[in-house]
């Protein structure tokens, strides 16, 4: 049992949790949150691979670490886009779910004018 | 051989840990939002300050010690401003969730 294994299992469980939330929760904001959990779990798996790649002078393999850094920034950008979409949808329909009723109620003029 | 600096570190860090405990207990046990805020903001900023004070002699030089101190000052300043803001939000009819 090493730190890498402990956090690797933690990452796997976090990814599973996020996946469940993204499927089972009907509210888009919660799906966005769940996706962030899912991505953090995947990043942790990368971190474990980086940690296991430690050789004498390095505390870890720098390549997966660099990938995770770019990944975190891209995940943040994706979250920002998703939130902007959600807020725009909320303004157009007054609804915070993606139910068929809400989609049908989009007034035509709110899409473009 | 235990040096004077080590004894100082042990005392300061222990005191810091004690204040963290006080802050958490206050946060849990006090009856309403504003008293909880009072307990928390005072106790944990002091706790962090004492931990920083205890670690400073061990930082290995003036600059690292100053960096530690600046972390604490930063927390103290933002903590003070933010707790003001939280207190006002709580006073201005903060909605309960449940």
């Amino acid at each position, binding site marked *: 049992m090493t730190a890498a294994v402990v956090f690797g299992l933690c990452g796997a469980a976090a990814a599973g949790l996020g996946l469940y939330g993204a499927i089972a929760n009907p509210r888009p904001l919660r799906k966005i949150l769940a996706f962030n959990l899912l991505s953090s779990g995947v990043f942790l798996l990368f971190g474990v691979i980086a940690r296991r790649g430690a050789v004498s002078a390095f505390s870890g393999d720098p390549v997966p670490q660099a990938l995770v850094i770019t990944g975190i920034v891209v995940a943040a950008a994706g979250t920002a886009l998703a939130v902007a979409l959600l807020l725009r949808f909320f303004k157009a329909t007054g609804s915070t779910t993606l139910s068929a009723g809400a989609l049908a109620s989009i007034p035509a003029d709110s899409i473009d004018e | 051989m235990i040096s004077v600096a080590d004894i100082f570190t042990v005392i300061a860090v222990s005191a810091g840990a004690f204040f963290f405990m006080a802050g958490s207990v206050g946060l*849990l046990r006090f009856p309403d939002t504003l008293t909880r805020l009072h307990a928390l903001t005072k106790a944990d900023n002091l706790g*962090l300050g004492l931990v920083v004070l205890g670690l400073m002699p061990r930082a290995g030089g003036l600059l690292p010690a100053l960096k530690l101190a600046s*972390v604490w000052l930063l927390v103290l300043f933002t903590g003070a401003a933010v707790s003001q803001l939280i207190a006002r939000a709580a006073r201005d009819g903060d909605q309960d969730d*449940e």
Partner: protein
Amino acid sequence: MAEFLQFASGFVSAMVVLGMVRIVRGPTRADRMMAAQLLGTGGIAALLLRSDITGTPSVIDVALVLALLAAFASVAFVVKGAREASGEPEASE
């Protein structure tokens, strides 16, 4: 000494976890935000202790970043209470 600092860091973390019960219990949003604030301060303390134990000064930088940005999320929470509620032209259709 390392053992003592290790113990202290464990103790501070435990206290912070205790405080985190407030995030769950609420009841007001301010209470939850406060508990997150406590987690930030306690996390900084744990990081500083950790930096000393393992002799990695760069961990102090992580504490510095948390000190700067822990306030940021709280501000995002407060601003809504003070401004948007009082007539930000939200629904501009």
